[in-house]
């Protein structure tokens, strides 16, 4: 499949398949959800990021072999008051990143609750990644890596420790999610929003590259 000769686009990109996925970020406030997204989407970091009210929407596309994976990212508000809005963002999502702050044990406990809620109420088969953020503050760590690792393993989650500040593992965690997401479905799943959208140009070659 990878060696198949494909016509080149004028800009040199292969007209591969485009897969679009809805991804939601959840976690206690101030663990760095918006910062992770800002780093992933714009390559920027601000020490002080204004608090998210409701949810912020961003998109970013990454390339895996000949597949362009477009993430529609919903970055949600962390505080309890805004919890009731969360289902509308994780409903129909194919992926979720649950974020906690490695220097704060409470945020790890909160993350576990989010994982439980997702496992109970989100789309079955949703890919969940656990991100222990603020790795740059390693000296102030209060959540140990092996503890999170074990928890993630037992619950079938992807797990990485990240730093939006230094950008450590930020692209990596999105990439790991993209790799785990099924890219062989061609139809929309009813009632789950825009699950898979083919780009106009790629429509015709879809049947040949979708395996």
């Amino acid at each position, binding site marked *: 499949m990878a060696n198949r000769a494909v016509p080149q686009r004028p800009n040199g990109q292969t007209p591969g398949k485009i897969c679009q996925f809805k991804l939601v970020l959840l976690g206690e*406030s*101030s663990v760095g959800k918006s910062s992770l997204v800002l780093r992933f989407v714009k390559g920027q970091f*601000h*020490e*002080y*990021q*204004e*608090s998210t*009210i*409701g*949810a*912020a*929407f*961003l*998109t970013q596309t990454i390339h895996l072999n000949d597949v362009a994976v477009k993430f*529609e990212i919903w970055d949600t*508000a*962390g*505080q*309890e*008051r*805004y*919890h*009731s*809005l969360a289902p*509308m963002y994780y409903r129909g999502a194919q992926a979720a990143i649950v974020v906690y702050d490695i*220097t*704060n*044990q*409470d945020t790890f406990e909160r993350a576990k609750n989010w994982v439980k809620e997702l496992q109970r109420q989100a789309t079955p088969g949703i890919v969940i990644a656990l991100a222990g953020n603020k790795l740059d*503050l390693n*000296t*102030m760590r*209060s959540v140990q890596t092996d503890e999170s690792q074990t928890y993630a393993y037992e619950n079938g989650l992807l797990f990485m420790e990240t730093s939006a500040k230094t950008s450590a593992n930020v692209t990596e965690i999105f990439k790991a999610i993209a790799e785990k997401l099924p890219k062989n479905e061609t139809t929309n799943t009813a009632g789950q*929003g*825009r699950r898979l959208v083919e780009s106009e140009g790629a429509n015709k070659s879809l049947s040949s590259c979708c395996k």
Partner: protein
Amino acid sequence: MSSYDSRLKDLDQVLESEVIDLSKLREFCFNGIPDVKGYRSLCWRLLLNYLPCDRNKWDEQLDHHRKLYQQWLDEILVTPGSIDNEECDHPLSEDPNSKWNTFFKDNQALTQIDKDVRRLHPELSFFQQATDYPLPIVVYSCGTKRLNRRVGMHFLNSANVVRKGLGIVKISQKSEQTSTSEFKPLEEGSEAHWEVVERILFVYCKLNPGQGYVQGMNEIIGPIYYCFATDPIIKMKEHAEADCFFVFTNLMSEIRDFFIKTLDETDTGIVNMMRKVTDRLKENDPVVHSYLVKNEIYPQYYSFRWLTLLLSQEFSLPEVLRIWDSLFSDSQRFSFLIDICCAMIVLIRDQILAGDFSTIVKLLQNYPNVETRVILNKAAELSVKNRDEESSGI
């Protein structure tokens, strides 16, 4: 005389009468309060019912409230253990009346406030600068009364002690989190504006225990504090903290339901407000309305934040001040907010109608550069139209 000068003269006339005509003042302020001579800070105090219309009562009113605020501070900023007759109370007490118990509980609220005030308008340097009017009992307390010092102190009952298997208890070191950049508490003798805002929110939280602090209140108090703490009239500026507390409290009494989850579905709750925006859009631009519906662009994606924060995150601070002049002058209180939201959508209808889901959500969440004047004019136009239609029974 230029039209600007004559406007100032008009405003002076309204403000100088012994008993201020509130409807005249509203009418004037609706079109924007001049950015000079502390007009805005005075007018907001009047429009938000902190100052009475009778000028003769101003001194007494201000004096009374400022003293009251000081008294609350004295009570609220006390650290348990500092008073002698508390021998039976101790930090591990489970007595619900224990001052220590309350102290640790308060610290949880304070932790949230602290996170949010440290990221208040990060694009401006104002909130990180020192105030000219620090609170002496705080800034000369060797740090003990600085609220941000208390943040993280509720860890006593959670984070430091980790119980591993086999009963091994591990005490993890909790080193004090030192911030490397701007939002640092200032040195002994001075404090930054964000520390003052933190204190006002904490007092509000203590005095309104049913509601507490909700994220977003920081964005409501920010512009008010900024307006009061930059007042060119020194005798007003030096009381920015106390006055801001009362004006913020009055404003919150009108919009508090936006911040209470259990009231979401009530008449005054956020869901109904979002519905009003959608309905007004449907009346005024059915094409855009149905396009948004068709593309599954729910109001939660944009108008939730617009309404909850009174648009304070959508525009730059000077623009927010101008928009709030009109909002606070609205006698029906925030019916004009619905008109502004509707105007914001109608003004970018062409971009919306040409966009797909992603483009439209991004557009509405990052509102493009449209002059405030244009938005407000459009909103006023919609508001007149709606009022006419209502009165003629359409």
